[in-house]
């Protein structure tokens, strides 16, 4: 049965869901706010990252792993349909450790994850400095070890988003910019979404507007608790390949640029760069890889993460407004494959499967 689904938000989350819905034969219109919007999908680091995800919620660890397993096929599908190579690679990933305490804390985390998920579901192992030097010979003297997971990888997030938009158009989906949703109301069996570009009608609605979900939710009986968290990123000039796998602080792109990331700030919805954070990011990256000190930085930016208050994704169908789904997550790059290939088919079928029940926003209400 084909329905007309309106997806509100054309970032990585909305686009991945829209791509998957079209693959299930649904008719899809994406309404997107426009260039002035807060857009995490255009400012992120590009990791497809499994290790460390889901401490405290094993279902999230498994869901993340599921997405990482689907990513290669997903990237191929996007390239075939859109002609855009996402630059996805899965050489494994390394979390570098700069002190014995950090190493022990990480060992504990990895052990916890193993105990809960089993080796197959997680699989990060601690490497001591000697073992680490064999994989990453460029590390600095302060690095005491690393945590390695073969399930980690990275991609170019902008090309991933462009690939999705290209493939969506090829599958017959519509993307409408400058169409920020202002309200959602019932309209017969379906819903009407009011925007500056006019009113759009759909049988179903997917809220994938990032922070916008917080403001749209009340229209449809959903309380989506989200908080902003800024991350800043630096990009260097291109340099010959020196880093065979991404780390959580720096990664080298397929074109040779080095990205420095991993800052976390609570500065509301502001996304400006600031000197102190840029300084710390650089200093930390240079501690990890001293030869980066001679690289010139060519660009920097800030972007605002979309975090639920406990950091785990929110997937939920509204009880008062059936057919309206809310989708929110932090790691929208990592989860893009699962959103397209697992979540979208559930929405197309009209209900989230019970295994996603733990991700409901009901977990935040304590009554």
């Amino acid at each position, binding site marked *: 049965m084909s329905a007309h689904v309106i997806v509100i938000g054309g970032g990585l989350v909305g686009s991945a869901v829209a791509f998957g819905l079209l693959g299930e034969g649904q008719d899809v219109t994406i309404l997107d706010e426009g260039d002035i919007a807060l857009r995490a999908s255009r400012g992120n680091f590009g990791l497809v990252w499994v290790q460390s995800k889901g401490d405290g919620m094993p279902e999230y660890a498994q869901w993340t792993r599921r997405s990482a397993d689907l990513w290669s096929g997903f990237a191929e599908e996007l390239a075939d349909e859109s002609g855009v190579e996402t630059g996805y690679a899965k050489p494994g990933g390394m979390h570098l450790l700069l002190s014995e305490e950090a190493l022990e804390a990480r060992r504990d985390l990895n052990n916890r994850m193993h105990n809960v998920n089993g080796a197959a579901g997680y699989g990060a192992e601690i490497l001591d400095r000697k073992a680490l030097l064999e994989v990453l*010979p460029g590390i600095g003297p302060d690095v005491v070890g690393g945590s390695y997971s073969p399930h980690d990888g990275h991609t170019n997030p902008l090309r991933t988003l462009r690939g999705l938009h290209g493939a969506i158009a090829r599958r017959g989906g519509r993307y409408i910019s400058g169409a920020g949703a202002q309200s959602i109301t019932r309209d017969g069996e379906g819903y009407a979404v009011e925007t500056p570009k006019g009113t759009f009608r759909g049988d179903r609605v997917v809220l994938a507007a990032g922070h916008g979900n917080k403001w749209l939710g009340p229209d449809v009986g959903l309380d989506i608790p989200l908080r902003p968290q800024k991350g800043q990123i630096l990009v260097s*000039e*291109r*340099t*010959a*390949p020196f880093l065979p796998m991404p780390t959580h602080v720096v990664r080298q792109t397929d074109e040779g640029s080095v990205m420095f990331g991993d800052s976390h700030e609570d500065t509301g919805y502001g996304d400006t760069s600031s000197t102190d954070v840029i300084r710390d990011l650089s200093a930390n990256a240079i501690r990890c890889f001293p*030869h980066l*000190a*001679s690289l010139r930085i060519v660009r920097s930016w800030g972007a605002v993460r979309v975090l639920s208050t406990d950091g785990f994704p929110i997937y939920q169908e509204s009880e008062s407004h059936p057919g309206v789904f809310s989708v929110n997550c932090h790691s929208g790059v990592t989860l893009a494959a699962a959103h397209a290939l697992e979540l979208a088919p559930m929405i197309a079928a009209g209900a989230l499967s019970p295994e996603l029940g733990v991700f409901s926003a009901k977990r935040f209400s304590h009554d």
Partner: protein
Amino acid sequence: MTDPSPRRLDESGAPVRFEFEGREIVAREGDSVALALAASGIRHLRDSVVSGDPRGMYCMMGTCFDCLVEIDGQPNRQACMTPVSEGLNVRIQRGAPVVGESA
């Protein structure tokens, strides 16, 4: 990739000489390296890191990073942001340079 008939609109300014791939280029004071090369009919400044295809100037204002060349042994210099000076040694940049001490 050379331009067969480059044309300089403003001929004023004292001549400044530098080398591009061993060839002498006569620029004018105040030119950028990219401008001087364009005015001499040279458009091929580097080879793409990814495809190896030739690349040249694009924005001429420091934002696109397409015009990277090696100047006096230092790679990744933006030709459009570097003023000419007497005796510079400019070379085509081939692929991704090794920057700093190699790992």
